[in-house]
């Protein structure tokens, strides 16, 4: 459990990071290291060079910008958990964060690291896909952004190419009053990798009709997926049978089998957890308005 030798560098700017990465395709970025270091220890990864970005101020912080919350890539997960701004504006992310690892890994693990790592069962990528976040990427050509849905390709595979550095994640903020969120997950033990995780966010109007609703599922296939729940929009949620909608949307999902659970299990869990997450979100949105359950 000792890493193979590598060179360690800690550049002072993102520009320098991109330069180093472009010059050496076996160089890798390290931020919180909570996934990369185990991979190095098990020698599943053998980079020539580790480029440490975790102290770059330009990649750190949580700020409000034009209807979105921009979380710098090296902002630690625990910092988001404690941020009053994130608590107000990103309730779904706040519900998902306690499921990310354990307190001692959230104290070092970063938001951008979880995004760049693209684990199919990871919660932060799931929230990013569910809410339609934008991933900001920096390289020698400057900064650009890409929808989360395009960014994630497969298990641990993203659209970043050598020379790219994930710089920030831009989460859209839903500012309507009757908003509710739901997050459910099933794993072997609390904080283990999710077999399936479900994230939902809903907005209702005064009469209890759904104005907007999103549902995302993680851990089922090779990447987090957004499920089509548009049938809910415009409907009176008190009369709507969510479980039928979610079941029909998930029964043909591509799902992985592994030594823990089968693909069938994952599809069933996706239907159940998706229904619960949406149900929670609706209940919360109704409660936000003082509507009776």
């Amino acid at each position: 459990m000792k890493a193979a030798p590598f060179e360690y560098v800690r550049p002072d700017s993102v520009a320098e990071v991109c330069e180093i990465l472009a010059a050496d395709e076996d160089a890798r970025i390290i931020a919180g290291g909570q996934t990369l270091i185990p991979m190095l220890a098990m020698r599943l990864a053998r980079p020539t060079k580790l480029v440490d970005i975790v102290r770059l101020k330009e990649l750190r912080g949580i700020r409000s910008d034009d209807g979105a919350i921009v979380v710098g890539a090296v902002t630690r997960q625990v910092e988001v958990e404690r941020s009053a701004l994130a608590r107000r504006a990103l309730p779904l992310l706040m519900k998902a964060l306690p499921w990310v690892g354990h307190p001692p890994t959230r104290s070092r693990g970063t938001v951008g690291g979880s995004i760049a790592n693209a684990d199919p069962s990871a919660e932060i990528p799931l929230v990013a896909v569910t809410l339609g976040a934008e991933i900001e990427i920096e390289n020698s050509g400057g900064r650009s952004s890409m929808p989360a849905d395009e960014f994630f390709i497969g298990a641990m595979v993203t659209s970043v190419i050598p020379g790219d550095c994930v710089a920030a994640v831009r989460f859209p903020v839903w500012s309507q009053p009757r908003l509710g969120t739901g997050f459910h997950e099933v794993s072997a033990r609390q904080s283990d990798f999710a077999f399936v995780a479900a994230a939902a966010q809903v907005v209702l109007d005064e009469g209890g009709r759904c104005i907007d609703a999103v549902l995302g599922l993680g851990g089922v296939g090779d990447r987090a997926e957004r499920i089509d729940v548009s049938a809910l929009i415009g409907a009176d949620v008190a009369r709507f049978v969510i479980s039928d909608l979610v079941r029909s949307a998930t029964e043909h999902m591509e799902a992985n089998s592994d030594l823990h659970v089968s693909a069938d299990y994952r599809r069933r869990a996706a239907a159940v957890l998706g229904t619960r997450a949406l149900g929670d979100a609706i209940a919360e949105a109704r409660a936000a308005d003082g509507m009776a359950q």
Partner: protein
Amino acid sequence: MKVTLKVNGRLRTADVEPRKTLLDTLREDFLLTGSHAGCEHGVCGACTVLIDGEPSRACLMFAVQADGYEITTIEGLAPAPGELNVVQDAFCETHGLQCGYCTPGMILSAHALLEHNDAPTRKDIVEAISGNICRCTGYGQIVEAVELAAERLRQTNVPRHVDGTRPNESLGDSTTTDAPKAAHTPHGARR
């Protein structure tokens, strides 16, 4: 590479390969063997130390990354030689340890929890130690130990921060704290 680390309030220097973990450096270069090597890939929690007051895995950080942080190991927790910190004492009293392998990590995780919450619920405690694996005592007495320590802390007449938080906890939103920071908590001394 030469690194200078601030461990338990003292600056220590070591010449390490970049691939040497903070854990191995603490144990081999500084002879602080209270941080235990268990799985060495971030699962068991035996190597937990505090970095700027926050529980972190010493096996999931290289020593070359650790300069500038306040690192606290189990050796730095007791207020004076021969004495025990309130959490350590509570573990002894409730039989919260048997073989002792997980104990330093458990105590540091519990200490970090109690630093900002001296009235934790059972759920808070379980969550705080969820990243620490014990294979002999079982978790019942460990949770009891943390409850006892919390109770004693509530009863002690020691001033705490006005808002009940540690200095690095109330983070501004656009100016989340940068990694290395000046000293804030005297090691071992509770505020």
